[in-house]
């Protein structure tokens, strides 16, 4: 199990030494969230309805854009090749990398989302559900994204290709993530949606590391 | 006959659907046949080139 913690510690140290990457993801999230009101208009009534959906799509795009970083650096300097030769289950190492990626790209979005929610005039209780849904949803985005990142390793035009590969797979997470907030604010209560998000998380935790590890072996063959 | 094409006022939609399906399926076959033809020519040319070399 320390394969996971070892990998997380390594990547967190690396991320701390190159803080810029974490900030670029955050800035992207903030800018996209700020663009929509400019496009739609300032009146709070529409923004309040759009809020959850816009923030969720912005978080989803921000997390997807940072997928390239998950394996690319290790692929370039050869550490990824070493990972495949370590006497550790590769799927656990990949899980460690995904957790580290989430800490750098998912968690910051979760922490910042309430602030952006205020821009959309969301009430505190709605913001609470938004944070919970992002907390459950962003790890799933990183887990599914890891498969896409591993498959498109070292390919030219990899960034756009990853988007085409993973966005269709993100649809259920988006539906129930944004749906939870919307259901809560419309009085239906978001518990049903959140529990489904939790189910997606468990399923992704079980399957994605193995699939991403297989994809890595294919890419490095 | 005109009545038949008129399709009770929905002519555009019915023929729009059947027509496009027919066109796409036919196009797929045509492209496949052309691809096979081009492939066979390229391969025979390659073989002749290799035979001349050896």
């Amino acid at each position, binding site marked *: 199990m320390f394969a996971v913690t070892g990998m997380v510690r390594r990547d967190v140290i690396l991320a701390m030494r190159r803080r810029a990457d974490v900030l670029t993801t955050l800035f992207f999230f903030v800018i996209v969230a700020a663009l929509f009101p400019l496009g739609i208009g300032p009146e709070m009534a529409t923004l309040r309805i759009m809020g959850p959906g816009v923030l969720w799509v912005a978080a989803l795009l921000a997390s997807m854009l940072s997928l390239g970083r998950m394996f690319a650096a290790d692929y370039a300097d050869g550490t990824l090749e070493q990972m495949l030769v370590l006497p550790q289950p590769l799927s656990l190492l990949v899980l460690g990398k995904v957790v580290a990626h989430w800490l750098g790209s998912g968690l910051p979005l979760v922490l910042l989302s309430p602030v952006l929610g205020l821009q959309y005039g969301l009430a505190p209780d709605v913001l609470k559900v938004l944070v919970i849904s992002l907390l459950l949803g962003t790890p799933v985005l990183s887990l599914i994204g890891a*498969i896409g990142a591993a*498959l*498109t390793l070292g*390919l*030219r*035009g*990899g960034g756009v*290709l990853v988007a*085409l*590969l993973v*966005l*269709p*797979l993100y*649809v*259920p997470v988006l*539906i*129930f993530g944004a*749906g939870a907030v919307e*259901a809560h604010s419309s009085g*239906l209560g978001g518990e049903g949606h959140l529990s489904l998000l939790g189910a*997606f998380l468990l399923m992704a935790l079980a*399957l994605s590391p193995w*699939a991403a590890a*297989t*994809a890595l072996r*294919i*890419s490095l*063959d | 006959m005109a009545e038949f094409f008129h*399709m*009770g*006022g*929905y002519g555009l*939609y*019915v023929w*729009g*659907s*059947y027509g*496009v*399906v027919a066109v*796409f*399926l036919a196009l*797929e*076959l045509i492209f*496949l*046949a052309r*691809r*096979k033809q081009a*492939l*066979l020519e390229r*391969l*025979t040319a*390659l*073989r002749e080139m290799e035979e001349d070399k050896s």
Partner: protein
Amino acid sequence: MAIHWTKYSAPSAFYPMAGRSLPWLAAGTLLLTAVGVYMGLFSAPTDYKQGEAYRIMFIHVPAAWMSMWLYIVMAAYAGLGLVYNTRMAHMLAAATAPTGAIFAFLALWTGAFWGRPMWGAWWVWDARLTSELILFFLYLGVMALRAAIDDRQRADRASALLALVGVVNVPIIYFSVKWWNTLHQGATIDFSGSKMDRSMLWPMLILTVAFWLYSFVTIFLRARCEILERERHAEWVGELLDNRG
């Protein structure tokens, strides 16, 4: 499409077999399509509610079924290819994807053309149409990944893994979209219109079989091209090219 596998898993055996069966498949396709279209456009009674527009259903539903079925077939070939490392399975998966994608596109096209007279809008965020759209994206993803990788072996295995990941997600996507649709729009609009009496069911089934045979034709044709491209160094290809003159 259950070909008994062992004999035809070798490209040199599959190529002639596909060649021999292509004329029959093509004939079957043409015949069934003609019968199906005739019944669909002529003998099926006019629907009291939708008038003639419902006749679009006779090709929309088969196209949608085929787009779903071919994705499963592609994923099955992909799985076989990954587990048994057989090139033929990967070639068939590569041959299936474009036909499946075309059926998905046609399902969307005919869905829109049917939606326009029915609900006055070219695009309706109906659960089935939306899932079909996402399925179309999944097809594009698999084909784009295969096209982006130069090394053929990696391309086969990477797109195979993506197809498998996709097929696991298709039901999840379908039910999430269905839930999302009911949440926002209440009861979904019943797509197939009034209760179908028997005479309306026949054209649809016939056309489904026709499309199914059609997919055999295109997949076999494309697979034969794939075989020629990949096995061009094999001596049986050499002989084939030589006596083709």
